[in-house]
């Protein structure tokens, strides 16, 4: 069973067609990167397949669960949304406690201590979320998504607002996740990071998948980087207005 299976997915907002027949398969244990320019449809695709938005047509399954069942999906996956917005008047520690209590996780204190330490948030544990910096909020959102150690992580611009040290730390953690046989699906437009970690990639443009495969498969010549692959794929697509 694939970790993610998307079949001919369409989504529009009024007259704006955002997804146009997207089809993808992500196998278990893959680190899959979805690239696209701003407004290409990455976030909408992530929101549709996790049931945060309904599709106009098409199907999507996450760990075999249809995207029309968002509660079941949210129970088994970890999702990092694009915009960080933890609860205003809870502290960092309390936010993680809330997530643990809702997910009914055992060993809550150990889990919380582990992630506070991982993201160096110990001295911010008792600070209200509204008073955290953008980077600290992003770390908290990441910790909230990782705390139940899900088999599948769906990340939307996970590296945004993180300094280079934590970008590297997060990258290493994600590599470890994939080595354990778990799956990561990451939407991003930061190609340098993706190039270092993704085992397979797809390029989305104008709501369509215009290229997909492993990086060597997508290379047209030796030494071609992801940036060149991305630009070629986008320029080569002739999407309708």
């Amino acid at each position, binding site marked *: 069973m694939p970790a993610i299976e998307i079949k001919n997915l369409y989504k529009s907002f009024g007259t704006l067609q955002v997804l146009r027949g997207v089809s993808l398969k992500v196998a278990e244990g893959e680190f899959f990167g979805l690239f696209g320019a701003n407004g290409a449809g990455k976030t909408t695709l992530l929101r549709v397949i996790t049931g945060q938005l309904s599709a106009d047509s098409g199907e999507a399954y996450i760990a075999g669960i249809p995207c029309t069942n968002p509660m079941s999906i949210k129970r088994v996956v970890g999702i990092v*949304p694009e915009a960080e917005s933890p*609860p*205003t008047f809870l*502290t960092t520690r309390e936010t993680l406690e809330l*997530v643990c209590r*809702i997910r009914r996780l055992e060993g809550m204190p150990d889990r919380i201590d582990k992630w506070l330490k991982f993201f160096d948030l110990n001295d911010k544990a008792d*600070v*209200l979320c509204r*008073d955290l910096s953008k980077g600290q909020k992003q770390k908290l959102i990441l910790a909230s998504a990782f705390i139940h150690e899900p088999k599948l992580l769906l990340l939307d611009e996970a590296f945004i607002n993180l300094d280079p040290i934590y970008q590297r730390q997060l990258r290493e953690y994600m590599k470890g996740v994939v080595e354990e046989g778990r799956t990561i699906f990451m939407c991003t437009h930061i190609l340098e990071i993706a190039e270092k970690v993704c085992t397979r990639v797809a390029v989305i443009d104008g709501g369509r998948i215009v290229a997909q495969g492993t990086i060597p498969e997508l290379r047209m010549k030796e030494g071609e980087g992801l940036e060149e692959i991305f630009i070629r794929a986008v320029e080569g697509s002739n999407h309708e207005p």
Partner: protein
Amino acid sequence: MIKEEWRLQKSLIGGLGSGLFPLLIFGLTAFCALISPLLLKSIDVSTVLLLLHIAILFYGLFVGGLGSLGESIMTRRLGQVNMLLQLPQTLPVSFRRVMAIFYLKDASFYLIYTFIPLLLGGVLAIPYVGVTMRGIAMLGVTLFITFMMGMGLSFALSALPGKSRPGSLLTVLLLIVLCLLAYPFKIIKPYQLLLPLGYWFDRQLYWLASGILTAILFAMIGTLLVKERYELQARKYEESFLSFDRKFSIFGGLRPLVAKEWLELERSGSIGSAIGMYAIHLIAVYALSWLFQNGFGMPLDFNVVFFGGFVGFMGVLTYSFLTGMEQNEYLNVIPVTVEMVVKAKLCVYFLLTSGVTVGYVFLIGLLKGEITLLPLSLAIAACTSIYVVAVTAYLTGLWTNTMFFGAGTMIRFAAFVVPPITAIEVGSLIIPYNFGFALEIIATAAMFAIILSIILLRRLDKKWSRRTFSSTSFNS
């Protein structure tokens, strides 16, 4: 800034609601002005003027209080991106100056939004009630100065605790003493506190001047006491979530969400505001009934069961307040549904209001000497509270501020709520004449309301299952 205020109003109560408000004021004022000859037969002019000025003073206090409350709401909803109030962080302007401008903006906005429609409503009645244009204009002036005094006082009182909590407490005590000296002790005259009202007794302009000076003085005190806040403070709190989670074990699977809601209300300082707002609305219902009985001389006996029946209506505002205070979008990524959060908010609503409801009904029972009717009245208060809030939650979910004012929602709300509540209120009025028959009507209506409440609460899941926590998109 006026444009920003208009957009804020629209975002809180919707475009239609915002647009209709001045029309509502105009219509109500015209109606009151037209029926004023009837009113003046049973109540003298000085009492009408006194009541009008007191009402407007409270309106000013409410608007001034809403300024600080609105800031906390915006801060919760938008984090630190608090529009113009956050200007001092990015531009060379003091917070004090921004607050002063903000205060003037509020005054200008409410002058246009409320007082001009109010005056126009009064003008419409000139040909029918024998008052002059000058009289209406002067009434507008004295009311507006009173409004500014209320707003200024509220502004000063909200800034005072930041400088000195004992000072703030002493000021409130002093104000209570002054009010008690005016009523019931009658040692000072009401117009010696409500200065613009004095104009109507001797037509001297110094009453207006002293009112204006007092309003300016209050506003200046408020502005000077405002803390400069160039830097954001990182506020630390000891861990409390788990202890609240344990305390609310009665709510079963909802307890983490109830604990979160309660903790957020407590830390944002909104518990007092929510309870106070609910209590003020209940008191306003009592004041209105007093006006109908004593002002209009209506031969109706509003007993304690009648007031119990009215309690539910006031719950709509409190529930709306609870749903409007916060963005919930982060809940989209954890296993929580809209229905669960709605139910958690309903639990918090009952935690906040139950004590006030019981106290209110009990107090009215005592005041009216209707102790024997108290059990029935308390049961009806509980029933209408549950019913009206269940209907509101079912129809509007977590978006009461905007959805409630949609025409379709309002019609459905009225269709759900008006028949059983009307039956209960009519039944309460029959009690002195035929207790048995009244009880039959009330019990039938209450039973209907309870059964429907259970059905609506059970259907919350179905109703909101396709909706996400996003404030902008419908997922259907």
